[in-house]
């Protein structure tokens, strides 16, 4: 009986279950990066350069700004894109430098929890902002 085996000693590999996740995350970094160029640099320019930065910021300033749906949408987009872009970047950094599987796992848990927390809290604040809230 002649049994032809190509590589008889090679370990049997599990059925290919490749996903394109890394490709999509790579693409997402570029696309969100372009959007963030406008959103973040615009935000920094307006907040830090036009009129003297943090010195004019107070509750009234925020109220005036979020009275406009345009700025609400701007800030919401910036929040989501920056969190996912930054979270994906940190995920890559963790994958590169964490040596033990357990370290990698828990760092990523911490990362994902912080991303969900910040996105949820930020979105909640933008959507439920009340300029007439009493202190």
């Amino acid at each position, binding site marked *: 009986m002649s049994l032809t085996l190509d590589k008889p000693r090679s370990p049997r590999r599990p059925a290919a279950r490749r996903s394109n996740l890394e490709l999509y995350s790579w693409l997402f970094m570029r696309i969100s990066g372009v959007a963030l160029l406008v959103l973040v640099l615009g935000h920094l320019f307006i907040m*830090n350069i036009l009129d003297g930065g943090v010195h004019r910021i107070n509750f009234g300033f*925020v109220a005036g700004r979020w009275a406009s749906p345009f700025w609400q949408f701007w800030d919401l987009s910036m929040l989501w894109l920056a969190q996912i872009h930054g979270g994906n970047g*940190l995920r890559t950094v963790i994958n590169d430098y964490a040596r033990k599987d357990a370290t990698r796992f828990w760092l990523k848990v911490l990362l994902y929890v912080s991303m969900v927390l910040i996105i949820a809290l930020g979105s909640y604040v933008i959507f439920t902002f009340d300029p007439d*809230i009493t202190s």
Partner: protein
Amino acid sequence: MAGTTATERAGTSRGGGTLYRGDLGMWSWVAHRITGVLTFFFLFAHVLDTALVRVSPDAYDKVIETYKNPVVNLFEVGLVGAVLYHALNGIRVMLVDFWSKGPKYQRPMLWVILAIWVAVMIPGTYFMMVRTVTDLFGGS
């Protein structure tokens, strides 16, 4: 060393590909990571402080008040510098990825973005610091 081509040690890399390793391109990548991670941590704090508008105007104003000092002002300049580098180098990374001549010009493109960075940060720092500096030393 800056300005020299990465030296290739025989047999140390597959296909002799040393486009980045040990060269300026590698350091631009290191800086890209550091500025990205710093910005992520800043963002965490920034969303939390802004969320105080949902607590009370007073709570928000009190925290913002603590930011109105020269040290925080310096941090702001640093943050803007970090984000600006990350943004400019991000453009460069996309050109390396998507432009057919990108890899060839990755090094001159680094000098270009550093020049833009300096050209923006000089007036930027001035406008960000002018209030603090006049408050500190302006007297009247």
